């Protein structure tokens, strides 16, 4: 089997073996959902626009939380050094790892986001559009967060930094994602936003692994 898929399935296996890491995003997602009404008190919560804001902020936070361990375990047990001396493109290895991580983290979002959205009175017939938007946006978010993870990979307390480094860079993606979701609620034509989100995702999938691999090389050399 191709090395790309070998690493991809290895990472999936590792992710599905540790139940704690697999289920933390689900619980985190729901915990934040229940903390949000408490933090703002008795206002009208069942408005779709709040669901949009809530879903995107939780996607950001949970992807930041999950991605911290993306490269660090491999660096600590020496696997990353083996990847580096492999006669195979290091960027593709990184892409395989990010892809596996995206599958694991996106799965939880695809399952939970519609349920939470509907609970905020998100229009039921528009929920599949929300899933499409999440599917188009999360690759770019995953790529950017893994860039942050690669930049801080060799630091002991790097996980605190990732949010500060990466959230300003993700903000444009967030704007387009929120815009698309709002258009979906209002039932307006959203093809422009979807094209834009796909373009952003393709752009980041193309350049992200290169940036990740060069920053990993720079921090490990």
């Amino acid at each position: 089997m191709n090395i790309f898929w070998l690493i991809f399935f290895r990472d999936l296996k590792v992710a599905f073996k540790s139940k704690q890491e697999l289920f933390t995003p689900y619980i985190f997602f729901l915990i934040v959902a229940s903390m949000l009404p408490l933090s703002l008190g008795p206002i009208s919560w069942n408005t779709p626009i709040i669901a949009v804001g809530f879903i995107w902020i939780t996607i950001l936070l949970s992807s930041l939380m999950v991605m911290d361990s993306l490269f660090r375990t491999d660096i600590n047990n020496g696997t990353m050094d083996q990847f580096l001396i492999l006669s195979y493109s290091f960027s593709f290895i990184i892409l395989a790892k990010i892809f596996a991580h995206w599958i694991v983290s996106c799965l939880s979002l695809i399952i939970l986001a519609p349920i939470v959205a509907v609970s905020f009175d998100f229009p039921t017939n528009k929920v599949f559009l929300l899933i499409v938007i999440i599917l188009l946006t999360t690759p770019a978010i995953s790529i950017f967060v893994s860039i942050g993870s690669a930049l801080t990979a060799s630091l002991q307390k790097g996980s605190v930094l990732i949010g500060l480094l990466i959230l300003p860079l993700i903000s444009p993606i967030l704007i387009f994602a929120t815009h698309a979701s709002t258009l979906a609620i209002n039932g307006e034509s959203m093809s422009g936003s979807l094209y834009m989100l796909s373009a952003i995702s393709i752009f980041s999938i193309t350049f992200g692994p290169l940036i990740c691999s060069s920053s990993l090389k720079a921090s490990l050399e």
Partner: protein
Amino acid sequence: MFNWFYRLGSPPHFYKLNRVIYPWIGLISILLIIIGSIWGLAFAPSDYLQGDGFRMIYVHVPSAYVSMLAYIVLAISAGIGFIWRMKLAHAVAVSAAPFGASFTLLALITGSLWGKPMWGTYWEWGDARLLFELLLFFMFLGYILLHSSFEDPNRGDRVSSILAVVGIINIPIIHYSVEWWNTLHQGPTISKLDAPSITIDMLLPLLVMIFGFTLFFFFLLLFRLQTEILIRSSNTQWVKSLFMDNAND
């Protein structure tokens, strides 16, 4: 062809050149800022809508402009440093970051002071321009924090330069946010390609101020670069001989 470039990249050569250049840049910038301030604050006509309150433009616009310029300088020099492994370029990036953060903070503070009498609020979270200027501040802080958290300065240079280069995607968004999201912040006054929407009496002092602020930023950058070069090459022969010569004088 690139000989001048490589010579500029050599720390001792640049140090000696810079010693001559930076006091002049500082002098010219301070003269320009003094001329611009007096012209803008005392002689320019007051705005028919905002009265004398519009004079905040002479501090706010130049510092906002310099904050973006500082990030571009930071990103380009970090990129040069990463690609050609040029130590001087990394030194430029590291020296630019704190001043970029300072000018961004200045733009935010003057903007919110200007916002209170004109918009009735110090801060408007819904405004894209304010939000992105704040994010620019965090981008400078992120660069500084990431760079300082590496114990090995060479590694810190290389890793944080990647962050700086990736962050440049946000600069056009900050610049065009006023046009893309039509919110509280007024549109651009002078960066439009057609005729500027400001009278020449108000525009000239503003241009003087922008030019003065830009030169002042480069003066600060070069000033700090002197120290940065000395710190980075403190073990080299030319720094030792430089201080020996000074001691002998």
